[in-house]
């Protein structure tokens, strides 16, 4: 029958997909084993000790510490072993390798907007090279969404007000699916897209073929001028605002004595909510840019600030 003609999982097309399936099948295999054991015991007791049967009932003791300890300790040990395996693997799947190329994703009702480091923009499509680690940095501009690529066995919520990440390395060229897995309103079921995994040379061609816009950091530099950030954050230390070159990713000392790491969430907050964390030694002068910059523009500003971290400043 045709309805039985399907694979249990989608195709495996990322570096860790096989590992996840293996783990799932080990867990399920153990579960099926125990389930069948329980069914057999149930059937055996049910038949042997049905009312009126001649079974010897004196053997059954009302309590048996050895037996009880066995079924407490055996599952505990197995749970522990699975736990160690699963946790190590979890760290692998959720921590993007350092050499990942970063692609930026904004979710909105009901589409995905995607931007490549070279400046290409796509909607509901994601082109990636196979064999390369790709890190998606994602946020939403309205409600919570979830970026799900079944063939890569990867999925993560896309939450407004913060950045989440996922990474993968595509292994097989081909077309795969993007689904929104978190219910996000009326058109949720239609919030779909596709991933095109290409051989590296095809990917290079695709990059060159697209209308090459500005790279995010170049666009960010223009915004930096346009929005007037430059008047307070000129390179070099001015009394008005702190120097931004080299600060991304580094530790920042705050007025209240705490130290925080200037990660993407911190930079985003500094632009939208400058008063939330006051940099040590500077007055609360910076105006909020809330409502004036879109999620993409915030992202471009962050890309620009990060590019300032390079030892020699790019362009000009």
């Amino acid at each position, binding site marked *: 029958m045709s309805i039985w003609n399907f694979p249990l999982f989608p195709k495996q097309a990322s570096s860790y997909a096989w590992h996840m399936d293996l783990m799932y099948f080990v867990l399920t295999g153990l579960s099926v084993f125990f389930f069948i054991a329980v069914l057999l015991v149930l059937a055996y007791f049910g038949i042997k*000790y049905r009312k009126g049967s001649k079974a010897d009932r004196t053997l059954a003791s009302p309590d048996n510490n050895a037996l009880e300890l066995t079924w407490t300790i055996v599952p505990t040990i197995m749970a522990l072993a699975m736990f160690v395996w*699963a946790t190590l693997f979890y760290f692998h799947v959720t921590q993007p390798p350092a050499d990942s190329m970063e692609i930026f994703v904004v979710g909105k009702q009901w589409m995905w907007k995607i931007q490549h480091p070279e400046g290409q923009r796509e909607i509901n499509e994601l082109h990636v090279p196979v064999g390369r680690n790709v890190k998606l940095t994602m946020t939403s501009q309205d409600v919570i969404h979830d970026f799900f690529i079944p063939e890569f066995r990867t999925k993560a919520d896309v939450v407004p007000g913060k950045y989440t990440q996922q990474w993968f390395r595509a292994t097989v060229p081909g077309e795969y699916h993007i689904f929104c897995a978190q219910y996000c309103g009326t058109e949720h079921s239609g919030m779909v897209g596709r991933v095109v995994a290409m051989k590296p040379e095809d990917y290079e061609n695709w990059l060159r073929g697209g209308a090459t816009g500005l790279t995010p950091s170049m666009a960010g530099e223009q915004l930096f001028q346009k929005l007037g950030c430059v008047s307070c954050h000129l390179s070099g230390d001015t009394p008005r605002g702190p120097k931004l070159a080299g600060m991304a990713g580094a530790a920042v000392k705050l007025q209240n004595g705490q130290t925080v790491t200037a990660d993407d969430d911190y930079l985003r907050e500094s632009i939208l909510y400058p008063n939330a964390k006051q940099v040590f030694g500077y007055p609360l002068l910076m105006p909020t840019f809330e409502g004036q910059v879109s*999620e993409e523009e915030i992202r471009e500003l962050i890309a620009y600030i990060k590019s300032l971290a390079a030892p020699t400043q790019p362009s000009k």
Partner: protein
Amino acid sequence: MTSHSPSLPSKAERNPAAFSFRAALVSTDHKVIGILYGVTALTFLLTGFLIMMLMRWQLAYPGRALPGASALFGSNSARMPGGVMVPEFYYQLGAMHGTIMVFLAIVPLLVGAFGTYLVPLQLGAPNTAFPRLTRLGYWSYLAGGVVWLSSFALPGGAAQSGWTSYPPLSIIAGHGQTFWLIGMILIIVSSIAGAINMIVTIIQLRVIGLTYMRLPFFVWSQLVTAFLLLLAFPPLGAAGILQLMDRVVDTSFFLPSGLVVSGAALTANVGGQTIPRGGGSALLWQHLFWFLAHPEVYVLVLPAMGMVAEILANNARKPLWGYKSMVYGTIFLGVMSMLVWAHHMFLTGMGTVITAFFQATTMIVSIPSIIVLTALLASLWGGAIRFNTPMLFALAFLPMFGIGGLTGLPLGLAVTDIHLHDTYYVIDHFHYIVVCGTLSAIFGGIYYWFPKVTGRAMNERLGRIHFWSSLVLLNCIFMPMFIQGMAGVSRRLYDGGLSYAHAQPVLKLNVFITHAAFALALAQIPFIVNLLWSLRRGPRVEANPWQATTLEWAAASPPLAQGNFETPPVAHRGPCEYSVPGKDKDYTPQWEQ
């Protein structure tokens, strides 16, 4: 039938099957209110079921007109124009199916009906500790249910943000969501009142001799459940009020900065000035919600385990195997269940260390469930098993709950959860627990305690038809959903996955599932007929028809309207002394010297 003193109230109040509506309205008797809970919750169960059938039609035949829908909804209704469901209506049905089933059907059946009715009897008590609190609990529950159902009539319809109501979606949603929150607050009041009452009743009203280790396991399960409700509901109450403020007075507790919805920034009007909204956190709601909703999952399970334990011991004619470890296991389960909530949030980017912590607590919490389940299984060992309808349902609970629990393992490990989260696999996992497991236990409980409540027995043959057809059909419905989930089909898809090109082969299963669900509806007819028929015509039974040992069977069937017992019983022994060597009958009731 036992004789009764002449000073008793009217006959109508004595026979609950014929009790007068007026008397019930003002009653503070735990039996009357327990029956009110039971009847109301069964009605809501049916409502939730009918809602689900509408959804299942849409999932099997997306976009096809539902025969008869025009007659039901009017041919150009906004919900089903021309009989075809619009997405908004599907999502209202989805959110309300979940909400009704959890908060208006299953929990009220377990805690409201069985708990309120049986616990005082099993304690040998004349009533609950605070009879008026019992009444408040019921009426507040009913009010919450009425608010929720009436929200379907609102211009924008009922709430449609899922039973989880995640912001920001729930905050920008229509008025139905406001009603959802108000209804939820009423349900919270009801649950807290009920929980306090239950705890005090169990601690204070145990009859002479009924020590803690002589309590029926069902009472223990209700005690732990009551603590869970008492501790977990207040945070949700607070969260509900915050969300209400976000919706009604434009605060931003759950709204982060910079939101742009349909092209416009979200703003609030403060003193004539328009200011941008923001500064809150969307995930805060999820923490507060799941801090309740995970313990709630155990509220949906523990009393069911308690009922299964009673039925199993009685029909195996054997004491519960390892009663003490079951009790300690249940207490441990209750404590741990307060520490696992964030395993519903593995994909929200919480951070790897927090995730590892919640993954560890999740592994730990599964151990006591295994202990209780295996102890129940071992209770059959060396028994003399009677396979009547209640026993069949109780036995089915074990493997069905087993499937639900075992499929939870890959969801509890954060890494395998990545692929399965928010798919039909999750839907299926908890339906195996709640429908195949808990609902089986509830049916078993109804067949088992019906004679106590009404003084009449239910029909065995209809009961068996009901059992076997339901068992087969439930598995026909839910087994295929695992396959859909593994293929990556998300939950909450109004079009049943039409746009999920890769999953078309598994989506064909939707038709089969829907037909099985419709057949399941038919399979409930023998039950409904049995219930109504036996109420009037069932053969009369004496006080202890199952030859059981716990104290509710010391009272007449039905128990005396006032005070339950003719003379308060005294507990002389443990709760399930069946087949004690050297005794001439195979059961020794707690109240026998």
